[in-house]
């Protein structure tokens, strides 16, 4: 019996189909050498641009998922692969990928000459690089912590590796993976805006999308168009949150391994629509059944099994020789790439250039550090106070998460206008942009920490009259510390990336830049000076890795060891 839900959902599904068909058609249209699409600042184009941008993000997300399932699984299953893949992932997480945009763009344009596909791939790849690493890391960690007894059930029941992956490992990893997917989508926005419209030397790329619309608005000095882009981004973020992530989170609640039913039930009205409407339910169950039976296939090679069963004593001598071969291969590859980078950079650059980049990176580092401190001083107390008021926190928390997703670079032009108008010092006033989009990670993590503060400890502080200075110093700050470090770590990583965009900003023909490695890389990109880009990104990466190892890791370890309230 069809009801009003059916009609509503039908409209929804048809809309989605038309959108996908329409959007993907434009992607393969052939085009002539300089990759520019006919873009206009007409508001009526915005929905289409928004659609294209969203499709790009989901294409990147799909690629990230494939990457996660293969890369992380390989790292978790093979000791030798793990030795290389995990440190590599760790570095990839710290490298400011935005700086490499020019390389990937050239690469993909060369791969598909004469088609927009190359430019699309380049943009999608840029977004992918902002999404994939943390997802892979979370999946790897989940695979390593699959409960032993469930593992024994799987082996005892003779699950094939394929079955074990889909019946045990993937479901177990699901909650953490979904959380990281949501974080990745947030991070991706920043890159979308930066990667849709990019100039590398003489090549200019403009793909239809919100990012290039914004770039066009900046060139034309149209404040109203900038604001329209902001509205479009807000609407898109809200839409995929409601239509995609909320249903997924509600659905994935059952994958949480916990002893009792959780108190918090995730709700999603979209999911309710699907559950209540008969034809939609059918629409979902048929693919679900097919996926189920694929997951139940054994998919194994017969000779692989016999080897699998005969795992008595592994031959130590053979294993050692294999290790030696493996290490040699790694060392050779490492040596070769160092040689390559050195050759590339040393061709045109001198020691003076190196000194310059180190000094500039130091400026940027001071900026990042000071701003994290400043943001912490402001937001930590406020977030604690919010987190301790559950009703308020419930409302503020989604807002903070939304703000973290919102690509702050959309708002950069407004800052430029202000700096120009009041002739402010860019070295100081552009700094704020670095933290503008990333401070919210601190906010919602600390709110989460304060919300998780155990009630009995709260009662104890009241009962023993712990107030004022002591309340902050001995109770609340230590209690939220582990959460704060998680947030600050993410914020700091994002800020380094943001520096590349934030230290060099444009408004029409006006350009203002601050002294720092970010503007160095941005200017080198604009000039198509590849050796400078490599040098800049390399020095910056080294700084970021040191920053993480020497500051955040120890703090994180300290927080987990001493201050985690369980």
């Amino acid at each position, binding site marked *: 019996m069809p009801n009003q839900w059916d009609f509503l959902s039908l409209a929804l599904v048809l809309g989605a189909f038309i959108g996908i068909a329409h959007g993907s058609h434009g992607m393969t249209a052939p085009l002539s050498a300089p990759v520019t699409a006919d873009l206009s600042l007409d508001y009526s184009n915005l929905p289409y641009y928004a659609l294209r941008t969203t499709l790009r993000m989901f294409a990147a997300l799909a690629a990230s998922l494939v990457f996660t399932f293969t890369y992380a699984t390989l790292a978790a299953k093979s000791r030798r692969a793990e030795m290389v893949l995990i440190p590599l992932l760790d570095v990839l997480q710290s490298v400011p990928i935005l700086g490499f945009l020019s390389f990937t763009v050239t690469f993909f344009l060369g791969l598909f000459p004469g088609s927009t596909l190359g430019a699309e791939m380049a943009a999608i790849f840029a977004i992918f690089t902002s999404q994939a690493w943390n997802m892979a890391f979370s999946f790897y960690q989940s695979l390593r912590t699959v409960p032993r007894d469930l593992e*024994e059930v799987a082996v005892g029941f003779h699950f094939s590796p394929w079955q074990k992956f889909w019946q045990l490992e993937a479901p177990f990893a699901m909650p953490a993976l979904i959380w990281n997917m949501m974080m990745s989508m947030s991070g991706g926005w920043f890159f979308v805006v930066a990667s849709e419209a990019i100039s590398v030397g003489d090549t200019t790329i403009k793909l239809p999308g919100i990012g290039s619309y914004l770039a066009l608005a900046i060139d034309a000095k149209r404040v109203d168009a900038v604001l329209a882009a902001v509205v479009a981004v807000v609407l898109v973020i809200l839409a995929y949150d409601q239509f995609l992530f909320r249903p997924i989170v509600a659905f994935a609640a059952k994958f949480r391994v916990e002893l009792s039913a959780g108190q918090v039930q995730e709700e999603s009205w979209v999911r309710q629509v699907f559950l209540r409407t008969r034809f939609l339910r059918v629409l979902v169950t048929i693919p679900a059944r097919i996926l189920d039976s694929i997951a139940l296939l054994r998919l194994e090679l017969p000779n692989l099994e016999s080897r699998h069963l005969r795992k008595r004593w592994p031959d130590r001598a053979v294993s050692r020789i294999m290790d030696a071969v493996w290490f040699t291969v790694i060392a050779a590859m490492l040596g070769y790439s160092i040689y390559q980078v050195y050759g590339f950079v040393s061709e045109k650059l001198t020691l003076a250039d190196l000194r310059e980049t180190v000094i500039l990176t130091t400026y940027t580092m001071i900026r990042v550090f000071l701003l994290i401190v400043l943001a912490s001083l402001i937001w930590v107390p406020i977030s604690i106070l919010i987190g301790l008021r559950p009703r308020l926190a419930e409302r503020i928390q989604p807002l903070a998460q939304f703000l973290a997703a919102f690509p702050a670079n959309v708002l950069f032009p407004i800052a430029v206008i202000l700096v120009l108008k009041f002739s402010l010092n860019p070295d100081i006033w552009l700094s704020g942009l670095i933290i503008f989009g990333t401070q919210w990670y601190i906010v919602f993590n600390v709110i989460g920490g304060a919300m998780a503060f155990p009630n009995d400890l709260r009662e104890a502080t009241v009962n023993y009259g712990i107030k004022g200075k002591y309340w902050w110093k001995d109770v609340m700050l230590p209690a939220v510390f582990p959460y704060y470090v998680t947030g600050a770590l993410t914020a700091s990583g994002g800020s380094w990336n943001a520096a590349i965009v934030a230290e060099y900003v444009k408004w029409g023909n006006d350009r203002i830049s601050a002294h720092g490695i970010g503007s160095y890389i941005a200017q080198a990109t604009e000039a198509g000076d590849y050796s400078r880009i490599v040098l800049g990104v390399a020095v910056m990466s080294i700084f970021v890795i040191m920053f993480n190892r020497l500051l955040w890791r120890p703090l994180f370890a300290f927080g987990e060891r001493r201050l985690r309230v369980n």
Partner: protein
Amino acid sequence: MLDRTQSTLLELKDVSKTYIKGSGEAGALVLDNISLNLREGEIVGLLGRSGCGKSTLLRIVAGLITPSKGDVSYLGAPVIGPVQGVAMVFQSFALFPWLSVLDNVEIGLRTKGVGAEEARRRALAAIDTIGLDGFESAFPKELSGGMRQRVGFARGLVVEPSILLMDEPFSALDVLTAETLRTDLLDLWVEGRMPTKSILMVTHNIEEAVLMCDRIVVLSSNPGRIAAEIKVEMQHPRNRLDPEFRQLVDKIYALMTKRAAPERDGVFPGLGLGMALPHISTNTLAGMIEEVAAPPYNGRADLPALADSLNMEIDDLFPVAETLQLLRFAEVMEGDIKLTASGVKFSDAATDARKKMFGDHLLAYVPLAARIRRVLDERPSHIAPATRFQSELEDYMSEKRAEDTLKSVITWGRYGELFAFDEGSQSFSLENPGEE
């Protein structure tokens, strides 16, 4: 049982297991020369304390772990991997939290390629047998522990195994639930409503073993060896209050404490510095001394009775009794515990005097404690890192056991005010060891 023939299903011959250290070299011996037969129609219990390797033995039988030495054969064929026809029930239930009860029961069939309809039919039958009707669509986290373990049984039985392995299946349940589940399982077994031909169960609960098993294999600890095999001839249903039942329980208690008596330091594996110490809080030790000193025991208690009144199982009770014996606060023999003169004195003393006594006994009878104190005294800085003793211990025992032993000595040493330990720097020191 009944008219089932006594043919051998499973045979273990001279099975030993050595664990491999992180560095790749062979570590401590866990199981030593175990030979065991499992015949049709019997329930066999593996009884022993934690750390005697009984769970490892069960996993060797299941084909989940390969023995370092010896042979395992199932129906005459060597076992080289997980065996078809053997299903396992876990202490932790090990249910997939994202699958409903029905799906959990079906999964073992579905992954084998059994068709959807047949799997459903058989799963529903198993659910019916085990008394889970009405819970088919529930998720494990909605169920009580007892219901979850019923799902565990249904999942095991649905694949129609000829051997059912149970790894302490009732020890995560409360007393009443455990008893109901035991009775239900025994009913199914006695009435022949299970497809299973034999059950092998691991337990540390002596009464449970006597209640359920036809044969009890008692394992000694470190390394696990077969200490005794006891046939239980009583008819089901057995009555815990039956004198014959009580006698058997007492006999097993005596058996499990007997080995300790002749050689004093032989209670714990290893001698001198290499002695592995159980992790027991000083409050528990003091509490046990007080309990035995007070009426009705007045200094001497029957261990089964004591276990009953303290609501402790042998896994908890034995290590406490033996630690008291090591520290010369009590003696354990033939299933009894008797306080020594120092034990009686300890029970009458006030807190400070108790701590002093405890510290003195610790120095005198626990070589590791004496060793740590001596090193600290000798060093000018009076500071020593924990890693130094950890690596020394690892010459005698596994990494994990060395860690546990060190943890015990830290707790005891702190209480006896022999030394201080700093968690952050992981080092021992003489700072503030009592006298300020």
